[in-house]
C-alpha cells in the first residue's frame, strides 16, 4: 500500500472507525462505501468499541515478509462489543493461554516492522483483559 493510501486509513486504523449501513444495519471494518448485504450505498462512519471477545485465533509461525520480526504471533477474529467481527493480532499473550470467548481490549501498536527509510505504520491490536 502506498504512503497516501495508508495515510487515508489513519483515523480508521487508530480508532476503529468503520461503516454502518443505514438501510439494513450491517457493520463494516474497515470502512465500506457499499453494503454487500442489501446493496445500499447509504453508509455512515461509526467508531466501534475498543473491547471485544475472541471469536477464533491462530498462531502464525511463518509470516509474510513485513511481520517476520514478530513471529511467532497470534492472529485472531475479534467480535467487537456491539460491533463487527474483525481481524487483528492478540499481543503480549502466549497462544497456549488464549481461549475462544475470552475478553480482549484494544491497544495501540506498530503494525509492520520498521524498514529503513520507510514510514512506520501504527494501529490497533488486542490484549487479553
Amino acid at each position: 500500500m502506498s504512503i497516501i493510501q495508508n495515510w487515508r486509513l489513519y483515523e480508521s486504523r487508530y480508532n476503529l472507525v468503520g461503516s454502518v449501513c443505514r438501510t439494513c444495519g450491517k457493520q463494516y471494518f474497515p470502512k465500506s462505501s457499499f453494503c454487500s448485504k442489501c446493496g445500499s450505498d447509504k453508509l455512515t462512519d461509526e467508531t466501534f468499541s475498543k473491547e471485544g471477545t475472541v471469536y477464533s485465533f491462530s498462531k502464525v509461525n511463518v509470516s509474510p515478509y513485513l511481520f517476520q520480526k514478530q513471529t511467532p504471533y497470534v492472529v485472531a477474529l475479534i467480535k467487537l462489543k456491539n460491533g463487527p467481527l474483525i481481524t487483528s493480532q492478540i499481543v503480549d499473550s502466549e497462544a497456549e493461554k488464549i481461549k475462544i470467548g475470552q475478553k480482549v481490549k484494544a491497544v495501540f501498536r506498530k503494525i509492520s516492522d520498521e524498514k529503513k527509510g520507510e514510514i512506520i505504520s501504527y494501529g490497533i491490536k488486542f490484549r487479553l483483559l
Partner: protein
Amino acid sequence: MPGIVTYGAYIPRYRVTVEEIAKVWGKDPQDISHGLFVTEKSVPGVDEDTITIAYEASRQALARIDIDLQKIDALYIGSESHPYAVKPSSVTVATALGIDNHYFTADLEFACKAGTAAMQIVSSLLACRKARYGLAIGADTAQGKPGDALEYTAAAGGAAFVMGSKREEVIAEVEDYASFASDTPDFWRGKYNKYPSHSERFTGMPAYFKHVVGATEHYFKKAKCLAKDFDKAVFHMPNGKFPRVAAKVLGFKESQIKDSLVVDLIGNTYSASSLLGLVRVLDKAKPGERILVTSYGSGSGSDVFVFKVTDNIKNLRKGQKLNSMIKDKKYLSYGEYCKHTGKIVQN
C-alpha cells in the same frame, strides 16, 4: 497556578534480569546488582516504541476523567528514543487519542529530562492562558549497547500528565518550577549511531550530582525552604544508588523518597524515569502533601517541580496503579531481549 488534572503510566510487560545479561558477558550479576540497586528492567514488546508507549500512558490518564478532547490545546512528548529522526511522534499520539488539529505541539529531547521539559512548557502555556488543557508526556525505549554498563538499566516506559487550570479539577497544584543546566559531555548519541556513548567516570559528580543537587539547592534558596518542608521527593533514577545519595546530600530521609524508587523494579526509563517516580508517589498521595521532583538529563540539566496535592485527588477515578503494571511481567531470555530491542540484524 495550573496543576495536574489526571495522570497515567505505561510499562511494557517484558523484563530481562541483570543476571541474564551478566551471564552473556561473563560478569558477576551480584556485583552489578549490588552496585546499581537494580535486578531487572522493563523491555518493550516487538511492536512497541515511544509513540505506542506515550499513547498508552495518555490513554490511562484520560480514562480517569471526563474531558472534551478538543480542549486539549497542547501536547508535548519528551524522549530520547523518538522513532524518527525527522517526523514528530506527538502528532501520531494526538491523532490516535482523537485530538483535533488545534494544539501546540513538538517532540522534545534532552536525554532523561525531556519529560519534565514537556511539563514546563505545558505549565507555562497554561499559566499564560494560551491553553485550556495540555498533555505532558515522557516516554522512552532506551537503548544500551550490548555489553555496555548501561545495558543493565536502559529500560522502557512512559508517564503522561493532563494539566489544567481549573481549581476544582487540579489534583496536584504546581507551586513552582526551576531549572539548572550546563554544557557537560557525560552521555551522548551521534546522529547516525544506534547506541549512546558515555564517559565512564564522568556520570556521577560533575554530571548527575552537580545538576540534581544544584537545581534543588537553587530552588531551596529561592523558595526559602528545606528538605523537611516536603512530604515526598522524587529524583531522576539512572540506577538505584544515585537518587538515594542525592536525597541524602540534600537532607531527605529514606522515607521521603522510598515510594518514588521505581528504578529498583524496572530500571531507568529515561525521559519517563522521574515522572514514573511521581506517578508512584501520586498513587499513594494524600491531600495537602507537598512533592518535590528533580529530573536529570545528560548533557546536562535538571528541572525542579514542586506540587501540592489537593482534595480533588480523592475524586479522581481509580486507574491501573503503577505497581500492578510493574507486577504484570514476563521474563525474556537474552536472545529474546535482543529481538525485542532490534539488536538482531536480519539483512
